């Protein structure tokens, strides 16, 4: 594959054709904040936290779904980008009910970590205080819609790594939400294999192990990467 040369934050970088700006940046050790991206899953550009500025393009573009191109100049950090990232985070917080102090993911939550690192010290928008419920019907796991950011990591991992296709998105706008099968209680799902990959993939406290108390969720993403690598490199397929 041909190599492309581009500039990120004033640095000359070469990346493989077909790579995303996010991949190119991370290979060069440049950190771009992300939320819906998860190593091992294909990207959908849902959260807009990885927005970058591309010289000559008036719009901001998501780094996770923008492919590298010869000669493009990219900025991953600017006053404008910081402003948008903060705004995006504030909207995520305003849209659902986040009570970190009582949350299973307090201290290990990607949303919370982003809010801290991006200097989001308050929310300027009116909280919507929507009425979302908790689905505690599954034998092993629980889902609290109040904390979901609709990153769809659980959906993608369920369809494309586990292959169960249990998790889906229903509804539009602020009504959009994650469902199991044809919108039934998780505990009634026939397709769920109870593998727990969605729980491992979730960046927030929305999916959790049942019985987990405050700040008790610690997720191990390396297991997902392990599976993906094993599949891509055909590690489990013997030669003969």
């Amino acid at each position, binding site marked *: 594959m041909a190599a492309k040369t581009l500039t990120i934050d004033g640095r000359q970088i070469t990346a493989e054709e077909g790579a995303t700006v996010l991949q190119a940046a991370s290979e060069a050790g440049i950190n771009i904040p992300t939320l819906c991206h998860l190593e091992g899953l294909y990207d959908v550009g849902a959260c807009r936290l990885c927005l970058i500025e591309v010289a000559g393009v008036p719009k901001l573009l998501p780094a996770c779904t923008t492919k590298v191109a010869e000669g493009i100049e990219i900025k991953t950090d600017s006053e404008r980008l910081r402003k948008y990232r903060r705004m995006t985070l504030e909207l995520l917080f305003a849209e659902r009910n986040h009570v970190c*102090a009582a949350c299973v993911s307090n201290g290990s939550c990607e949303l919370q970590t982003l809010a801290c690192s991006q200097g989001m010290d308050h929310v300027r928008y009116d909280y919507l205080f929507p009425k979302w419920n908790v689905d505690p019907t599954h034998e092993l796991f629980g889902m609290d819609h109040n904390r979901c950011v609709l990153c769809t990591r659980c959906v993608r991992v369920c369809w494309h790594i586990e292959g169960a296709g249990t998790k889906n998105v229903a509804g539009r706008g602020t009504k959009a939400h994650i469902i199991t099968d044809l919108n039934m209680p998780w505990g009634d799902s026939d397709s769920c294999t109870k593998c727990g990959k969605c729980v491992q993939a979730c960046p927030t406290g929305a999916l959790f192990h*049942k019985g987990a*108390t405050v700040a008790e969720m610690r997720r191990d993403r390396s297991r997902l990467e392990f599976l993906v690598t094993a599949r891509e490199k055909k590690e489990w397929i013997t030669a003969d």
Partner: protein
Amino acid sequence: MSKRIVIDPVTRIEGHAKISIFVDASGNVAAAEFHVVEFRGFEKFCEGRPYTEMPAITQRICGICPISHTLASAKAGDALMAVRIPPAADKLRRLLNLGQIVQSHALSFFHLSAPDFLLGWETAPAQRNVFGLISANAGLARAGIRLRQFGQEIIEILAGQKIHPAWAVPGGVRSPLSQEGRERIRAWLPEAFATTQVAFDLWKKTMETHQREIQIFGNFPSLFMGLVAPDGTWEHHGGKLRFTDSSGSIIADQIEVSRYAEFIGEAVQNSSYLKSPYYLPLGFPAGIYRVGPLARLNVCEQMGVPKADAELKQFKKLGCGAVTSSFLYHYARLIEILAALEYIERSLDDAELSSDCLRADAGINSLRGVGASEAPRGTLFHDYTVDRNGLLQKVNLIVSTGQNNLAMNQTVAQIARHYVKGGAGAIPEPMLNRIEHGIRCYDPCLSCSTHAVGQMPLHVRLIAPDGKVLGEVTRG
């Protein structure tokens, strides 16, 4: 017919303690009401949440005693799971509660109350606080602050954070006591004992000079309630309920905490947002009972540790039957600090505190669970009803300050009676300091009560039988 002096919750001023003093037609005090406005409607807020979150949610109810809420909540969780938690977990929770008792009582005694009785009632409010105490007796003030730190240190060692730790969980606790933590506690203990001794010496002198206060600061017959061990020994986390009357007789004993509703009724008074619990068999308001240090010492037969038991003997001599003066809450607090220190010392040689068998695992096995624990201020109940999946359907909390509400009213009335006599409705200045202290005897868990710096903000109104405001004072 009666008139009243009011601190009104309707016209309330944020952070002020509101007090109404009712006077009769001849201008003498008939009754008083201390309006507690602190309750935050948490019970509704929790509905629909998983019970596993409750130790963390409920410890936000009150910034003053988060540990007590987290412990009562974890116990209610144990009951929902219908498990017996590992013995090590029980011991560790107890150690945490002892740390909480020490830190809370030290704060109450040294920071909040001692300035009043050491510096004197007529000392200007600007001096009658912990800073005044520091300039009058720096050694004592410092020792008191250190004693509180000792309690906080235990909490920090066990639970990792001084405020709002989510360490006690349904089924047990999250981590054991480290060897290093054990040694840190051990090294600090001698100093904590020495400070407590100084406090006792000081208190005994105070009792000699404060006979009048003992007589009028909430000295009245009432019932007392607290947890006791099966043999009647002092309890703080575990055991069953006992009620005694002012003659010292046991009127109900070894009641499972889950049966509290058969013995405790809750009256809702318009004047207060807090429910006023009373002993159900006697009705309202005859069933008035007190909780907290004074009550725990009245209901128990012994502390179970030698030094505190020697003090308990002297304490019990102060009453015929029960000790009925709320001014002696201070004394009871010191005895509990001493007992806590002795229990802490005893537990330090227990290898089980390092065990890694700390948490029982189970689903929902009971749809209702009640947990009770002795908070520094008195027995605290958490009562949860859940669905099959552990989502809360109903939450009822009975907090210590609520249980003392009726007693606080009587205390204020008793003090006021000595200052308001057939007058034209003036609110005498010396009365305010004493009412403030009368409330402080109970160490109520209200934000206004913990103004360590300066006086408690008060809003007092004196109201006539026809509802006319005769006098009104806002202070602080």
